[in-house]
């Protein structure tokens, strides 16, 4: 398995020893470089995801999707981005200008923040704290504030209704999201993202196999809660187009709207990425215990494994999204507080028992 830390240590030593830079300059250069890489990856994935969404959505609806701009419509998203960039940005009359302007940045910060927790490869985790998972859920919650501020600040009744719905929904589903992650943490014994993935390398060691029943339950509940957290699928109440025009980002144009659009798709990717990291082994390849097979699988780089698994889950979430009709707000809350959360708590107990007695693989 290729260890990406070879590259990073080489670069670090290049700055420190070969160029003789001090702590301040080498860390500054590294930080800027990593930041640029994150943002570039973020933008590229957004383009891929938006195109994928349009195509997958079209296929589920027996359509072809964009076909005109470029072969098979692949330049459609670039045209959209260009359009968005040249649109005028204006603030609505009597809007709360401060909240209105800050809100998109909060949403994008939360999105980029969680995005940087994803383990791309062995040794290529960008944010890797000992309380990684905990911090990740905390950072992802910043997005709620952005949504609420946008809805409140834009002086629009649809916006306020949408912001209330969004806040209620996101805060509720944070619950089962967190509980699912805690269930996984019990099994791995660490909250560090790299540690969680490390615990899943080796034959049949993905958490979903290791933890069998409770892990599978946690995985499924995580997908449901994640879908709600990303404001998508049957849970897209906050931007219910048919009821609230566009909800909290009705009054945004140009890149303000673009940020929400980006964040929505990247949140989808982040949710899928976390599900991959925690339950499907992150960059860990499929190992089944037969040496020749495992050796071949190990040759495939970790980033391919990670992206492959993540996009498989993204597709799964899109499938769910384009299948189910939107829920009502009371149904959403009922689902969370009466079904998912009790299930998660029971699952937590079950997992604790299994780990305590060593019944996992």
């Amino acid at each position: 398995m290729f260890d990406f830390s070879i590259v990073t240590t080489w670069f670090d030593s290049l700055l420190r020893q070969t160029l003789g830079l001090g702590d301040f300059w080498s860390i500054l250069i590294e930080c800027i470089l990593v930041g640029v890489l994150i943002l570039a990856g973020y933008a590229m994935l957004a383009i891929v995801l938006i195109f994928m969404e349009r195509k997958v959505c079209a296929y589920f609806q027996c359509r072809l999707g964009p076909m005109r701009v470029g072969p098979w419509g692949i330049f459609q998203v670039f045209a959209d981005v260009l359009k968005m960039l040249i649109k005028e940005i204006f603030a609505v009359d009597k809007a709360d200008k401060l909240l209105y302007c800050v809100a998109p940045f909060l949403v994008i910060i939360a999105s980029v923040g969680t995005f940087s927790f994803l383990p791309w490869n062995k040794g290529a985790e960008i944010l890797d704290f000992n309380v990684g998972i905990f911090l990740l859920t905390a950072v992802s919650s910043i997005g709620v504030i952005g949504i609420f501020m946008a809805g409140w600040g834009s002086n629009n009744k649809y916006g306020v209704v949408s912001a209330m719905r969004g806040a209620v929904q996101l805060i509720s589903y944070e619950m089962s999201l967190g509980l699912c992650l805690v269930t996984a943490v019990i099994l791995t014994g660490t909250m560090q993202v790299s540690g969680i993935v490390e615990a899943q390398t080796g034959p049949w060691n993905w958490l979903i196999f290791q933890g069998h029943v409770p892990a599978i339950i946690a995985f499924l509940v995580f997908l449901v809660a994640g879908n709600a957290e990303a404001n998508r699928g049957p849970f897209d109440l906050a931007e219910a187009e048919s009821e609230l025009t566009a909800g909290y980002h009705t009054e945004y144009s140009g890149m303000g709207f673009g940020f929400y659009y980006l964040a929505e798709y990247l949140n989808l990717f982040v949710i899928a990425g976390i599900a991959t990291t925690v339950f499907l082994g992150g960059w860990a390849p499929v190992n089944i215990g037969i040496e020749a097979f495992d050796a071949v699988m190990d040759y495939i780089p970790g980033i391919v494994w990670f992206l492959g698994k993540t996009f498989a889950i993204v597709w799964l979430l899109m499938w769910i999204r384009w299948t189910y009709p939107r829920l009502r707000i009371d149904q959403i809350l009922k689902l969370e507080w009466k079904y998912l959360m009790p299930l998660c708590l029971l699952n937590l107990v079950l997992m604790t028992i299994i780990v305590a007695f060593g019944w996992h693989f």
Partner: protein
Amino acid sequence: MEANNKSYFGEIGDALKSLATGLKVTLKEYFTKKSTEQYPENRKTTLHVAQRHRGRLVMKRDENGVVKCVACTLCEKACPNGTIKIASEMVTTEEGKKKRRLVDYQYDLGDCMFCQLCVNACSFDAIEFTNDFENSVFDRDKLVLHLDKEHYESSLPNILDGGAPLTIGKFNTATK
């Protein structure tokens, strides 16, 4: 809605079952052939237009190219939009009878709402609607047609018979 008297766990079971059914339906749809027709590309290959589609009015002609219209102006009177304007003259035939003869049959496609009232009013089966729908021009004046004088020919092959058979999932982007 059904009576909601299921137990808590019974509801969960039912929900999972119905959710799975929904996923099965959409998954099947994902892999079926798509029904989108890519119009300009397929206009000479797989384009299908129903024969009864009302694209524009034409005059029926016999094999000698003679129209059946006798200039009775029933269609002109039937038209709610004043789309049709008929000019006629009285001529005396060899037997000495006076007869009305068609001089100009003006049909303004831009005003037509394709209601078929004119075709229904015609007692001589002289006019009909065809399914030829490619009628756009750059100048409104070009929409004013003189049906008795024009030599009508469809812009698309076989379109008058409905074009290609109606098939779903056979689109062709490569050929024109």
